[in-house]
């Protein structure tokens, strides 16, 4: 278990796709953005080159799917998106439209190297898309009836389907054209906000703030909830096995517990529990989704934990 430099709130974690070899991870925190090169054992701040007069709260971070080659990192901050093409040593800020939006979530196209698509969700200003690797951005909010975007999920077959989902404070929305327009998904809105999302083929997982996990097997037309008393909680993160549904493993980050399902959400076991009422905010499963695979866990006031 290792503390970060600042034990403040961790908003997001993102790990290198080749974590097993390079051990690189990034953590977006209230006090800035941190990088680890040893699998999360130690962390160093990354904004030094910016010579900021004060800390820069960073709400989200995402690494390129081709990080080992292009070393590209995006970080979402109040007012814009920071982009680094050297693994976080130097940064370029792209300010988005005024008034400055708070970027809450970033996601990259699985085909980022070719299509250069970067997606950003914000509080109050909806959804932004960049089609040139983060240089220029514009809003695309047609049909997005709630502009407070909390999470995004991209179809692994995005190259062909162009499908992505956005979870918001009041509902769930689906786009079939790379985020250029949205249609509301038939999600029971009384259970929103939606904090986390995951998608594989027609299977959609939505983690809510207070009502636990919802599962849809038909791209959101109908929903069911796994029956398990501990799941009736805030779902801060969902991780599916790389080969899901062939390997139907799921990890779920609740407020203070990590749950594991070996069978696509039918049964659940407690994987880990945070000590001393610590509150979990996010997590990452850098070595894959297994019951005993190592995890990085972000907390509300205790930095990052290795479990």
């Amino acid at each position: 278990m290792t503390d970060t430099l600042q034990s403040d709130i961790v908003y997001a974690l993102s790990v290198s796709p080749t974590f097993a070899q390079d051990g690189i991870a990034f953590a977006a925190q209230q006090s800035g953005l941190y990088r680890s090169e040893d699998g999360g054992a130690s962390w160093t701040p990354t904004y030094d080159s910016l010579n900021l007069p004060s800390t820069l709260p960073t709400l989200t971070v995402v690494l390129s799917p081709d990080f080992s080659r292009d070393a590209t990192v995006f970080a979402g901050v109040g007012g814009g998106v920071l982009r680094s093409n050297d693994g976080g040593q130097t940064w370029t800020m792209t300010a988005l439209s005024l008034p400055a939006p708070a970027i809450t979530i970033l996601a990259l196209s699985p085909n980022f190297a070719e299509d250069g698509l970067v997606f950003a969700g914000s509080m109050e200003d909806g959804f932004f898309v960049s089609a040139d690797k983060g240089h220029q951005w514009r809003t695309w909010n047609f049909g997005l009836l709630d502009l407070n975007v909390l999470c995004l999920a991209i179809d692994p077959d995005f190259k062909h389907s162009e499908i992505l989902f956005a979870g918001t404070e009041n509902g769930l929305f689906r786009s079939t054209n790379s985020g250029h327009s949205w249609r509301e998904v038939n999600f029971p809105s009384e259970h929103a906000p939606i904090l986390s999302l995951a998608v594989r083929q027609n299977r959609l997982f939505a983690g809510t703030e207070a009502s636990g996990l919802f599962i849809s097997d038909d791209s959101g037309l109908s929903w069911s909830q796994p029956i398990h008393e501990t799941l009736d909680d805030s779902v801060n993160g969902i991780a599916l096995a790389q080969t899901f549904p062939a390997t139907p493993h799921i990890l779920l980050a609740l407020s203070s517990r990590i749950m594991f399902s070996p069978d696509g959400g039918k049964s659940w076991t407690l994987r880990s529990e945070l000590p001393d009422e610590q509150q979990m905010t996010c997590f990452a499963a850098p070595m894959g989704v297994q019951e005993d695979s190592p995890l990085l866990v972000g907390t509300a006031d205790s930095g990052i934990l290795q479990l």
Partner: protein
Amino acid sequence: MQHGINQICDAIRPTLGPLPRVVAISPVMSNKTPELLDNGAVIARRIVQLPGRSSDTGAMLIRHMLWRIHEEAGDGTATAAILFQSIYNLGVRYLTAGGNAMRLRSFLERGMKLILNELDQMTIPVEGRNQLANVAESLCHDPELAKYLGEIFDIIGDCGQLDIRPGYGRTLGSEYPDGSYWEQGIISREILGGTEFSRAELQNVHVLICDQKIESPRDLMPLLEQAMPANVRSLLIVAQDYTDPVKSFLVANWKRGVFQAIAVKIPGSVPDDQRAFMEDIAVLTGATPIYKATGQKLDTVHLSDLGQARRVWANVVHFGVIAGKADPLALRQHISNLRAREQATPDADQRRKLQQRLGKLLGGSATLSIGGSTDLEIKSRKELAGRSAQAMRGAVRAGVVPGGGVALLNCQAALKPLLEHPDDADERAAYNILHQVLETPLRTIISNAGSDVGTVVAECRHRGDRYGWDARSGQVVDVVETGIFDVATVVRSVVTAAISSAALALTVDVLVHHKNPEETIQP
């Protein structure tokens, strides 16, 4: 009557298909150039009167039907004219031989229902910009325009706002303005400062909506006294009207920069439209409108009555709201109510207005600018884009059927069982007429493309249900695979209008003419 019907239909017939012939209409003023048209409805509209009163009656009957289809569906008028003409001519031949017109009409209408059911079963939902572009190309036969329409309708859906404007260059272009905007410019150009293209913009804006005229700056003072301590510095005012002192007060404040307000009048020209727009802006921004009828006055307004938006802009002709802080649940409910009304209303104009409102509430719009080498080219391409766009809305909403007349040809199968065991001669005649008529659109497309009708129709039948004539490649192709589609709502409208109107026309037994009919040249 038959003579008049045939005259109009024969004028429209060459325009069917992707390789249409053009119809030249001689001008009313002799020194003008002839109008070159390929739109059936407009051709019919230009034919104001035919010589011979009975012929004229027939011509006007079909003219009105075609214009109604044009307004409702945006496409399909040539097909409707051909169907109507064929049914009417075959019907007249049967009635001349002693058939019963009323029974024939009843069986024609029964057959129509079977055809409509068959069309429903053939309907394919259309999704994605590529499929939509294929549909658009089937409508407008202009690949470049079709590509833009495919992209636009993939984004804005069936209700989105699309403005088609003449462009400045030679090519087409599309834009997607952020947020929603209405036709109503800023009340004081002084705020804009610069040219007519300037626009005023405010961020983190509060929104006041009232249906009263603001008579004096004093009316706004109670609100400003609440706003300043709450650090509210930007306001959008949507009101019925403003006196000059109020305009001067707002301009002076704008220049000082202490308190900035963009003031516009309520959009809409009639009270019902104005009320609707007030309601929409209120829902989009979370405002509580101040209505004169409820006895509310501006001096009783609280900050909590104001809506909010992240950005507001205005120029001399429009104002817009970007990222209004709507209550998402109220917005959903409002949209769902409007959708229900839009689906229920039989009035095309009302439906169009409701669609425009829905588009604005869904938070976006598109602008398609049409360029060209000459004004005439821009004008005709703009008209074509408008027509195609109207039909595209139907395609997005209700899907498509195999195009090029193939869907109608395939409907023959639904009539075959009835043709085998008719109860009497009238029934047999009605289904026979419909059976024959269903292949006339395909035959006309082939004929207009200059190919041999008999050979091509035989090949289409031989190769199967989805095969039709691709006039541009000159081959029999799988129309679904090739992307040749017709909009399902258009085909349904065409079938319904053509069969029911022709069946009704066949029951006309007596024509009564006025002694001295009024003459008109109103097109």
